[in-house]
């Protein structure tokens, strides 16, 4: 298993850091899947996370100037690692002014993702900083847990308002204990108050589609978003799941929040 990527463009480094930082705000640990064309940050829905799952997809060509990998085998040309995104984020944040940043899979005291940056200096020799972030290699037999989620058979799909607006509202509603998302002709985020957002319904306008979710999960999702996406959508499966989709220029993020009884 080998992996080596190099980022030279400052804007790409900045975007990559932002993506990793967003992921770090959503979950403490997740799986990083590396394929020849893509990187995926995956969180599979487990009881421990409250059943929340996440799928974030990046095209490596959008970020890396150089990218080489050799997976577990030629048929399974992929690498699956369990990482703590906060460590990656911390390492990347301090090297934003680097001339070049290399991300490599290494074996130090344990398997690590090493972030090595060459920093500009006034002297003839560049300053090199390395961060060794410990990772756990996920064996092939568990890879099925981290597959791309299929699009749920949603009952209604709506475009979300600017995330900042949503966050402000959700922050205030958090003081009320539960959170209800109801969709009819207008989307109502309500407990005791009705709030109107633009929405599109693909169902009978008389019926109400609902998914009741833990407001803290939604809040956590919103807190991590630093930039407004090009598209933000929410699919709702009646009394089952809230599926949030954010499409940015260089990455897509899907977040599933299960409905509570």
């Amino acid at each position: 298993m080998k992996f080596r990527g190099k980022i030279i463009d400052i804007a790409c480094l900045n975007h990559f850091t932002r993506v990793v930082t967003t992921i770090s705000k959503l979950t403490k640990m997740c799986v990083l899947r590396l394929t020849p064309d893509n990187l995926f940050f995956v969180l599979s829905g487990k009881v421990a996370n409250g059943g929340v799952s996440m799928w974030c997809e990046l095209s490596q060509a959008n970020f890396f100037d150089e990218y080489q990998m050799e997976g577990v085998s030629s048929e399974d040309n992929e690498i699956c690692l369990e990482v703590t995104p906060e460590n990656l984020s911390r390492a990347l944040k301090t090297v934003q002014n680097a001339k070049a940043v290399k991300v490599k899979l290494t074996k130090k005291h344990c398997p690590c993702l090493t972030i090595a940056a060459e920093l500009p200096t006034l002297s003839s020799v560049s300053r090199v900083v390395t961060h060794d972030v410990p990772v756990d290699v996920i064996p092939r037999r568990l890879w099925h847990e981290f597959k791309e989620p299929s699009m749920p058979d949603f009952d209604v799909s709506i475009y979300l308002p600017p995330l900042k607006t949503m966050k402000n509202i959700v922050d205030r509603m958090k003081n009320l204990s539960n959170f209800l998302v109801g969709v009819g002709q207008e989307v109502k985020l309500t407990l005791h108050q009705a709030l109107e957002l633009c929405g599109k319904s693909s169902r009978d306008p008389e019926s109400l589609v609902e998914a009741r979710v833990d407001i803290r999960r939604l809040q956590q999702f919103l807190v991590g978003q630093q930039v407004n996406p090009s598209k933000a959508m929410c699919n709702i499966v009646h009394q089952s799941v809230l599926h949030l989709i954010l499409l940015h220029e260089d990455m897509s993020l899907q977040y599933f929040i299960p409905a509570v009884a």
Partner: protein
Amino acid sequence: MHCIVTGGNVKVLAKAVHSLSRIGDELYVEPQEDGLALRSVNSSRSAYACFLFAPLFFSRCRLHSVQSVFRSLTTLEKTVEKCHIDLDKQKDRLTFTLHCKHGLLKTHNLSFQDSESLQAVFDKDSYANVFRAQPRLLVDTVVHFPPSLEEVTVSVSDERMWVRNHVEEEAEASKAMLTELCLASDEFDHFAAQAHNSVTFCLKELRGLLVFAESTGLPVSMYLDEPGSPVVLSVTDSVLEGNFVLATLSDDPSLRKNSTHKTAPPPPDDFMNDDMDSFLIAMDTSIAPGPSNTGPPPPSLSDDTQEEETDDLDRLPNKKVCLRFLRKDGGVLTVLSKNTPYVCRVASEQTTETSGTKACTLKQIFN
């Protein structure tokens, strides 16, 4: 006794106080022939800082109170023209009078207590490795480490300096993130590494000095020796000299292959006499009056535990650190801190280990 600080120096004084406050909770103020010394030490006695200014008086008062006098640095710069510092020994009062613009006079009255002198022992000329750099270099280095990071290891060779975070062996070594930065000798104003040493010390306490140096633009000199010997960082200009002395881990097993062990010279033998008590007792009673969270709790050791302690201390070299302090009578006191920071090492002719000291209980001392 009183002294006056004027103009831009008020801000310098304020910054010095700020950086001292990052070391400890109490400020020691002492007049010397060569100037006014402001000192601070942390509760475990593993970090010490001293700023030497120009004039004179002797007292001690709570740092927090002094710091609140100089709290807002930006306002200070704009409004304060002069600062008078007056000591009233009869009323036990230290007064800071800030003469501000528009005839405004701000007077802060702080209470203080007499105390013994506090001065760490170190000799910069005896250090094998000396470096000097612009503060920006050190600030840019430190930024790569998380603010909560406790300890950092600095290693030097002829042309390079490596700075990396130190991870305790017993801790989750396999899960900790390791960061390492390499600096080339030509990034420094001066780089003289005679001995290829590696020392580990606390980074947090250093940050106070870096903030001071960066704001005053003064280059920082660094003095490194073998593990166990404190690392000294200092800033100097025509009117002040600031020294930060930080204890280092002694005998770190992972560094053993790199370090050369030198036996420390045996301390003077008048150490065992009763005069030493006065130093510690003064420290203790001075903490007693007001509420303070840096004072050591009263020791509850008995004579019987001395044996256990010696065993315990045999293992100490793998652990923590020591700074040596000058007693009023010129003798030297070495305080070792571990989980029980109140065990005091006293010099004796029966050297049981490299540093030439042996343990005794505090009760013996206070008797």
